């Protein structure tokens, strides 16, 4: 289970060795190495969003029980051209191609749209509560809640389950595309 509650990382980890242990539980050392080749900052939201997108697509496709198994979703390749990252995540023998767009305001990851065998899943992390108009246009216009309180969006008269988490200066959205 990889939720978009990444936003709580900083708040709960006020000590460096604990934070290191936490990352060890979530990421393989090779994943961290791949990420650090392109990004020197300590920001792991890029890695998290890639793995979360793969996890959610697989979880929905196979209706797997929720469990804490981030190491089963292994980032195998990672390449960056401009603001676009193309990565491949392995789950057992399944390869999942994830595309991410990263800039100073957000990281946005989604499943390759040609992979029709799996549910497409979009994950959107914002680094700031203040979103400029060009970014805002990428978001669904309105998130509503059903009678059980679960958020959803409507696109072309179709309902898509959605989740939204926010904490101080950070907002995370994710939604299923089909």
């Amino acid at each position, binding site marked *: *289970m*990889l*939720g978009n*509650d*990444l*936003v*709580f*990382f900083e708040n*709960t980890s006020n000590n460096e060795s*604990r934070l290191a*242990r*936490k990352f060890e*539980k*979530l990421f393989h050392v090779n994943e961290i190495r791949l990420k650090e080749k392109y990004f020197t900052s300590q920001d792991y939201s890029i890695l998290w969003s890639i793995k979360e997108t793969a996890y959610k697509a697989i979880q929905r496709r196979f209706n797997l*029980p*929720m*469990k*804490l*198994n981030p*190491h*089963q979703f292994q980032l195998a390749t990672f390449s960056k051209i401009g603001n676009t990252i193309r990565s491949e995540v392995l789950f057992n023998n399944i390869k999942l191609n994830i595309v991410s767009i990263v800039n100073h305001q957000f990281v946005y990851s989604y499943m390759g749209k040609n992979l029709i065998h799996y549910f497409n899943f979009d994950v959107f992390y914002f680094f700031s509560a203040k979103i400029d108009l060009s970014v805002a246009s990428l978001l669904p216009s309105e998130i509503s809640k059903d009678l059980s309180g679960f958020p959803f969006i409507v696109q072309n008269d179709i309902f898509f389950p959605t989740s939204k988490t926010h904490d101080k200066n950070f907002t995370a959205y994710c939604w299923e595309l089909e």
Partner: protein
Amino acid sequence: MNKENLQERLIEIIKPYVSSPDKLLDVTPETNFISDLEINSAHLVDVILDIEDAFDIRIENEEMEQMTNVGASIKVIQSKI
């Protein structure tokens, strides 16, 4: 340490990450961390780290996957102490 004692210690560990203390009143081995106690995934990692610290053990990734409820977690802890 018997299962009851382990369950009590485990409840103490998970308490800070549970939104409402009422959720801990009827904990059974089947109580699920995610669906019953509504512990988010980031905090679930905290629970794992706190268990490691409290029992001075190391929980491997494969074991972490199994620890979705109280009973399964007690089983993993018991196998290590």
